[in-house]
């Protein structure tokens, strides 16, 4: 978390000051927070649902829920893991509505290839398919732990998002990396 995020978080939690009019209203604080955290959250949401449009919507809904939560003075222990958890749950609900349990990585890669067809050469597509093959070896938990870790979340935060213990996170991460490594070794 960078300094500007930390500042925004401080503003979010000094609600008394917000209401007294000494700081910007809650809406403005939420918008600033959204501007700061949009990209990493979007990145995670995109990896789960596989669509930038859907991911963008899910992230915005998560911030609307944050607004409701703070307006009700409901406690939030760790804002970052709370936001990731909400995005995660929204994404899972979205997938279930579509009758899917997980966004297939091959589908994701194909989708990416179509999106960037004009920029990607053929070998890029092949390369992506190889990566997809590596990621397909991972189970859902391993994949999500790796995604969240790559976004910079701590083990505890990942555990909060996925409702598992920090120790389990470390095991999933290690197992996921190992599978990834084995696949790459075989290919080499």
């Amino acid at each position, binding site marked *: 978390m960078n300094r500007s995020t930390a500042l925004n978080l401080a503003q979010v939690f000094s609600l008394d000051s917000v209401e007294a009019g000494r700081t910007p209203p809650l*809406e403005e604080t*939420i*918008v600033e927070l*959204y*501007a700061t955290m*949009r*990209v990493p959250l*979007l*990145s995670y949401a*995109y*990896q789960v649902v596989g669509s*930038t449009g859907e991911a*963008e919507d899910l992230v*915005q809904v998560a*911030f*609307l829920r944050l*607004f*409701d939560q703070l*307006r*009700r*003075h*409901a*406690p939030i222990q760790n804002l970052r893991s709370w936001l990731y958890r909400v995005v995660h749950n929204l994404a899972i609900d979205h997938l279930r509505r579509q009758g899917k349990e997980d966004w297939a990585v091959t589908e*994701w*890669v194909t989708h*990416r290839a179509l*999106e960037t067809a004009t920029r990607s050469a053929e070998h*890029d597509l092949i*390369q*992506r398919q190889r*990566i997809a093959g*590596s990621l397909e070896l991972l189970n859902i938990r391993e994949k999500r732990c*790796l995604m969240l*870790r*790559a976004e910079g979340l*701590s*083990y505890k935060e990942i555990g909060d998002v996925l409702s598992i213990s*920090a*120790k389990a996170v*470390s*095991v999933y*991460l*290690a*197992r996921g*990396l*190992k599978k*990834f*490594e084995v696949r*790459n070794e075989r290919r080499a």
Partner: protein
Amino acid sequence: MNGAPERRKLVPPHLADSLLLAYLDGELPRVDIEGARTHLEGCWSCRRRLSVLEASIDNYVDQRAPLQPYLALNGEQRVQQFRERLARHAEASELSIGEKLRAYGQAALAGIASHRRAALASMVAACLLVAMFTDVLGTRVSADTLLNRAQSFEATQRPYSGKVSRMAVRLDRIQRRTGRTQTLGTITVLQDSEKAIAYLASESASGDREPAVLASLSGGQDTPQIALLAEDLPAAMTSYLHSQHWLPVVTVEAFQELIAGRGLTSSSVQKEAGAFDLIYPFAEGHASGISEARLRLDRGTFATVDLSLFLGSPTDGTEYRFTRTKTSIEPRTAELARLFEPHDLVKSTRTQAIREPARVTPLSYSTTRATDEEVWLNAALHKSDACMGEEIHVFPMSDGSLLVQGLVDKSDRRDAVLKALQAADPKAPTQIFLPREIKSGKQLFNLPYQTPEIPSTLRSDSGATLADLSSQRIPLYEQLFQHFSRPGASAEDTDQQINAFSNEAVTLARQTFLHAWALKKLDLEFSPERSANLSQPTVQELERMRQDHRRWIATISHRQSEMLAQIGGSSPAQLAAASGGPLDADSLLRLAREQNDLVRSLFTVSNSARESGPNVSRLLAVLRRMGA
């Protein structure tokens, strides 16, 4: 018994990938970081694995990057769109008055929730106050709580600058069944405010004064030996009190030292008229023989009144009671100050306050009873042949625990012994050193008993003593040469056969002696007095070990007799075992020593000319007796 020792890994298990990853990610708990770092410094395998993991992370991040869309695109536009969406959302979800009230209620609850530790601590403190200062609903106060109260009171009674405290303690022995009380004597303890030192003088009931001793209160050496205690208390109890660095004063601090090695954590309180009895039971079969220690506190002031140690049942055993008869704070006069000068008094030291754990020391076999656990640990050593002349012993410790400690020649031998002990039930702390690890003799405890002597010729050898045939001849050479020489065989071949034969004879003689030694050692370790409390299966195991050694002695003796018969040392009739009942361990050890000496005189090189005939006859006689 002679199973081939398997190599045991001395290196701790490698770090799991999840642990390595947590280490890389800075997610390892603080307590584990140092351990992981130390392991990594010494373990190539894990260091390599760590770098592989790092490479995997890089690989994952690299491969993932091209799959990510350019999400920062149109950022400003998206933020503006969200701002408008949020404004619409806020307007549509404006809170009603009821919702606002509910929100404030939730906020209040959230406040308590966020400070729940403080709230909980306040509640606990309130409950403790009620428990300590009232007797509401018959609330039971723990012994430790009362001990802390007494300690606080005691802190206010310490001698301040320029003063000396004096405490007189009377020692009584009370037979609980009959109520008979016998006063054994009085101990006077003077404590200086200027130096961390105490002066102890004692006087027996008959009025005999004993030499005074000084005890340093700042830690270091041994506790003083007070003649009154050494003479009137049971040896096991004295030994324990000595090991706990206990001073015979009726104070909380001294009491805490006393109970530190009791081997239990339970305690209870009895409310007597005007007093609290704090009861601290000792572990069953505690080496000191103490079953329970009690400290009596004045119910009003929490001042210590007396301290009791029970042998046997608290209701019908023996109680040793130390009663505080006088306590005073006196000016530190020149005369009193001189008492604390260490001139010709016995210097001694006492450990620091109870906050530091009491030193656990080994106890002698003569003052302790053998336990089932001790036998089973010896059985494990027996299985790994560690009973065969190796310096590995099971030590009964002052806290009631057991320690296996010893010295072996080689690391693979240590591995074998450790493996056998790991497979044993129960487990005990183990310290087995190699000679290079011994920096000073202090690492090894004095043996808990006097072991039988092992001849230096056997101690220095780990295997057989090889007969040297290069220049000098062994006494039986001519007989052996006649026996082994064959037509057409070279003298060199014959010498090789003689060499192998002699080596086997010397090795077998050594083994016979070590089995007899181990048998005698078992008798010393588990004498009838020490073994009185052993369970039936344990007694059977002890007997099995003894029979094991006896069987080996008989078998090897028979084999030695056969070898001598081969070279014409005896007739078949002489091979028969001698008649007579089984020998005791002492006789077997004596004979085993003799046969070992005889074998060495016959089959090893000596400068002095010896007559082989009578020695062979005697050797045969000894072997026949041992083979019986």
